[in-house]
């Protein structure tokens, strides 16, 4: 049985004069200990997906319909007490910017110990010992001293390690990491990713990695979801998606990577921008930026279908592939 099973999740935002849909009926599964990447441009709904899984959307956002079954229980239906027991305990989250995630006026020790004591009946000293062990696991030198320090006394990379340690404190079944390295130096990014991969593998923790970095996804995850304008437009094994993307948007993302471009050439970016939530185009939301779009694409939203080894939501995927085959055959 899968650890997490999301079914037709729809999230809306109640704005002053209208209600907009941020997530439009997304569904996916995650097996125990599986690592899943969610990619897409800014505004695709990746972070909202992450926060929804913990039922932690702040106003004006709310879950309109759908199910989030975690270990068989629906997170959407949980009361506050059950949600508190879930958060930080069975499902932990790593936020984007370590510089603003930790409370500036509480010591690292206070912030770690309170998390343990919120979920387990422990003495302060027992909690402290667990905190020290976890800080060692994320390779923090002299953890006893770190516990007495305030966040501002530590570097960004160090803080993100501490946040990873806090995520691991209660041995959760799933960690949701929302762009965990975006705010860090490139050199530290690799370290943090390596650390997360190592810890997830050794502790059998499931991981949902939200990122716009396809390189990171290919190293870290087994499966990938590609999101666009609040929908999953392609999903499958990470290897297939990176090596043989089917949706024109995924193809565009991969072509835009610097590795796909010769030195001195311009990067091949996807023309146009992600539509805002209030102005999602009719039909396939990607149609204004898609060079293959037909009138049919502009009028009907594509269903998700099996195609080859992946699932993809595109009307034209079949024709594109046959065209490609023909071109290859001619060549």
């Amino acid at each position, binding site marked *: 049985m899968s650890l997490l099973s999301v079914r037709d999740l729809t999230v809306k935002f109640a704005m002053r004069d209208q209600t907009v849909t941020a997530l439009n009926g997304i569904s996916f599964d995650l097996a125990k200990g599986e690592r899943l990447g969610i990619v897409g441009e800014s505004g695709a709904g990746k972070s909202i997906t992450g926060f929804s899984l*913990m039922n*932690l959307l*702040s106003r004006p956002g709310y879950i309109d319909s759908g199910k989030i079954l975690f270990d068989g229980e629906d997170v959407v239906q949980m009361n506050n007490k059950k*949600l*508190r*027991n*879930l*958060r*930080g*305990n069975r499902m*932990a*989250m790593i*936020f984007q*910017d370590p510089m*603003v*995630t*930790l*409370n*500036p*006026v*509480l*010591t690292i020790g206070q912030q770690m110990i*309170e*998390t343990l004591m*919120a*979920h387990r009946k422990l003495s302060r000293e027992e909690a402290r010992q667990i905190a020290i062990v976890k800080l060692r696991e994320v390779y923090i030198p002299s953890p006893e001293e770190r516990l007495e320090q*305030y966040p*501002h006394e530590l570097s960004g990379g160090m803080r993100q390690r501490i946040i990873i340690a*806090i995520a691991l404190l209660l041995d959760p079944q799933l960690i949701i990491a929302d762009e965990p390295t975006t705010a860090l130096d490139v050199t530290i990014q690799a370290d943090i990713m390596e650390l997360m991969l190592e810890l997830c593998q050794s502790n059998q923790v499931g991981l949902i990695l939200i990122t716009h970095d396809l390189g990171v996804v290919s190293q870290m995850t087994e499966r990938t979801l590609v999101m666009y304008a609040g929908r999953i437009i392609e999903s499958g094994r990470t290897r297939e998606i990176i090596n043989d993307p089917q949706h024109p948007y995924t193809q565009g993302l991969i072509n835009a990577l610097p590795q796909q471009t010769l030195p001195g050439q311009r990067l091949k970016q996807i023309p146009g921008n992600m539509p805002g939530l209030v102005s999602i185009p009719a039909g396939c939301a990607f149609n204004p930026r898609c060079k293959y779009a037909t009138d049919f694409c502009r009028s009907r939203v594509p269903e998700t279908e099996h195609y080859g080894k992946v699932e993809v939501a595109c009307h034209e995927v079949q024709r594109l592939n046959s065209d490609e085959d023909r071109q290859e055959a001619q060549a």
Partner: protein
Amino acid sequence: MFAYLAKRVIQAVAVMFVISLIAFAIQGNLGDPLRELVGQSVSEEVRQQLRDEMGLNDSFVTQYLRFAGNALQGDLGTSYFFKEPALDVILKKLPATLELVFGATLIIVGLSVPLGVYTAIKPDSILSRIIMGLSIVGISIPVFLTAILMIFVFSVEYGWLPSYGRGETVQVWGYWQTNFATADGWLHIILPSIALASIMLPLFVRLIRAEMMEVLQSEYVKYAKAKGINPWRIYFVHALKNTLLPVITVGGVQIGTMVAYTILTETVFQWPGMGFMFLEAVNRVDTPLIVAYLIVVGFIFVVTNTIVDLIYGLVNPTVNIARMGA
């Protein structure tokens, strides 16, 4: 620590210098002191002679230096009316004023935190709307009007509370007479304290509410929720501590300002403090007393602000006083 303290003290001295300069400059423009000292029958020659003796014909700088030198030795001149050293007159009145400020501060601190936090957590509740509405009313009505209204309602109409004076006080130490030792003293200080708090309390409720609402939107509060922390702990440990940092800074300045508001409150309630005394001194053109009052109040202001800065350093871990040098 020492370097920081030294720096603060030097700043305080500079501020005191400016205050004394202003106070002294006022002195020269508040009428002729001889008119107060001697009768009309004294001839112009004698007056000139007295002026010379008192040094009133010396240059401004010479006069100021003499004044500052005396002030440093605790001599702020002699009150024309009381025929006593001005500083003594003020020190006798000071405890009454400080107790009034203390009473108002108790009300402000005791109510502003719970009200501010509540209105921040439940901004849409009816009670919050009522509190916020009343706070606007409180800020808008001048202190003396609030005071008169309260006297009218609670003293004249219902006769629950006394309307003037300190009532029965108990000698504590030196000039210090306290209101807080007898029931009568407590009854007398209630209305003046509320009147004095009537402007600052709504201000603080609004300030705490605004800061708290901002803090509740922050990433670290969201993160605390994601860790499954109890909401009460989030409100009162995670959020309130961050909320109070800016409030402490503003609060320090406001406590000083409150000393100024005592002039109005004490006058309406005939409270025998230094604010009431100051108004009388102005009526009597008792120049040395006016100048001494300005200097003492300036001194209180500077001292409270310095203390508040030190407290801020203790509460805010990102300000490290111990390591703060130049």
